[in-house]
């Protein structure tokens, strides 16, 4: 005899209106369950529908993992890994594609001895509107190939134009997730991931939105135009404001401000 069966003869049905797990359920319970279980099923399904239906729009970022994308241009590493190439359709005649490694450790990327070279880089394209990024494997031979010919100095050292100082309110994002690897790649639920990505060398971006919904994504550097130091990490993904200099480097807009210029709002 086991607990599963109990000590009653199930065929006797002597439990009255009391439910006992190892005996047949009384009629009154069966009737109740026939009504309550479908109702609970419908209720939880409806809740699932309601919760999923009201999720925020995560934006239009894309992570095109099904195809390999190649970019030929000039490789540079300051302030972050990137390739610039001539594009007559682009606003300033050139386009910049940021380079990041697979995962969250771009600082481990093998490439520094190839800086200011003409190269072809191959990887997975990440794109949010006009902002492009190439995700590549960590070892240089897996993604980088030299290209013969002279290096275009306009691409190696493009014009730097100051657009003035401004106090802006926005959010510090890790560019990789925000450009499309994660949707949504923002908000508090993404704060830890964004912090980890930036700690791993992925360029931080300052995401600013105007009241009419237009957005501007600016590559963040310190006031001298060098990579942001790690002390920015606690402010990542939170609403912040900062006064800094807006600079155009080729087609890329940079927001230059030291960490001390940022304030959580």
């Amino acid at each position, binding site marked *: 005899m086991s607990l599963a069966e109990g000590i009653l003869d199930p065929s006797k049905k002597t439990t009255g209106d*009391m439910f006992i797990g190892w005996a047949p359920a009384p009629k009154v319970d069966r009737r109740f369950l026939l009504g309550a279980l479908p109702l609970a*099923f419908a209720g939880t399904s409806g809740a699932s529908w309601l919760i999923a239906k009201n999720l925020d729009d995560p934006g*239009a970022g894309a992570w095109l993992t099904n195809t390999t994308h190649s970019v030929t241009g000039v490789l540079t590493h300051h302030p972050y890994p990137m390739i610039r190439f001539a594009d007559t359709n682009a606003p300033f005649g050139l386009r910049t594609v940021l380079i990041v490694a697979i995962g969250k*450790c771009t600082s481990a990327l093998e490439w520094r001895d190839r800086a200011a070279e003409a190269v072809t880089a191959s990887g997975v394209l990440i794109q949010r509107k006009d902002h492009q990024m190439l995700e590549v494997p960590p070892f240089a031979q897996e993604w980088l190939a030299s290209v013969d010919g002279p290096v275009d100095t306009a691409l190696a050292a493009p014009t730097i134009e100051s657009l003035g100082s401004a106090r802006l309110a926005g959010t510090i994002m890790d560019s990789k997730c925000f450009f499309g690897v994660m949707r949504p790649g923002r908000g508090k639920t993404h704060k830890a*991931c964004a912090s980890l990505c930036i700690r791993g060398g992925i360029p931080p971006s300052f995401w600013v939105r105007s009241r009419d919904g237009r957005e501007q994504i600016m590559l963040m550097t310190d006031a001298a135009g060098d990579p942001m130091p790690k002390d920015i990490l606690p402010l990542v993904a939170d609403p912040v404001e900062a006064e800094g200099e807006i600079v155009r480097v080729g087609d890329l807009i940079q927001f230059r401000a030291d960490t001390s210029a940022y304030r959580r709002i």
Partner: protein
Amino acid sequence: MGHQYQAVQWNKNKIAYDLYVVTAIIVFIGIFIFIGLQIRPNGHSADLVILLIRALGVTAFTMLTIILLIGPLARISPRFLPMLYNRRHLGVITFMVSGAHFGLALIWYHGGGPLNPFVSLFVSNPLYDSIPGFPFEVLGLGAFVVLFVMAATSHDFWLNNLSAPVWKALHMLVYPAYVLLVFHIVLGALMTEKSIVYPIMTAATFITVSSLHLFTGLKEWGADSAMKSLKAKGWIDVGAPTSIPNMRAVIASLPKGDRVAVFRYDDKISAVTNACRHQNGPLGEGRVIDGCITCPWHGWQYRPDDGVSPPPFTEKIATYNVKIENDRVFVDPKPNPPGTRTTPAIISQSGAPAS
């Protein structure tokens, strides 16, 4: 009820219960992901992994909410007892779903970086001194650890080896875990998503769980208070013999806070502790079936006069001496050792004690 331990002692009701739960989970997650992908087409939908993480999290919270509702609902109406019967399976499945949510979130948000994912979980958001900025992840981890401990000790093996009071106290940690989960949601998803639907739903579930527990708690407190006023000469007056429904019990509160279940079966009255040896289930809410007091939670049975489970089982519960004087039933508040045979009080035809 003594028996050899098995991983799960399946029966038809348990199989039906688990099938229903698993089907509901699949449908819940399926709807969530389908709607999540469809609601914003043209590349604006959340990605599949994040939808799955969210769906698993919402499912686990919904399941835990239902688990916590079953207890008070079963106290309000015995119609909910079938849902209580296999609640432990529901708890273990909830742990599995929350484990999938935790594992996937850990890999997706904390994996592949310069830090160990478990270190990242604690340090990637360092705002421990801020309420709105507080790292909600550690709250979820705290709740997950409790669910793990509960799932790991859910088997009757642990119930017997830890003793019922320790096991019960351990499993009462579900309440702090639920509060941790509410704050995990409030300081995480609710700080990220803009829709008003989420705070409303979270508040509604929390208020429902709290108020149902409060309602049933106050009801029991009221019953205990009423019983305390009936004390006389050290013995507890539980009322007229005929006020106890046949084959059922009234529950009396003892001076030290214990409860005693006083059963009437035909012309006899016996009293035993109200706490089932199995999971402290309320024996007084059960009934006498085939001559045995039967616990409403899982059907464990005891003979009314000696508190011993019928052969081949060997469990024993404390008994209490009873007497009838002046058409009133009195219970000696001093418990007898578990398994002690007592003489049932006999109700005469007139309602007076039989000589």
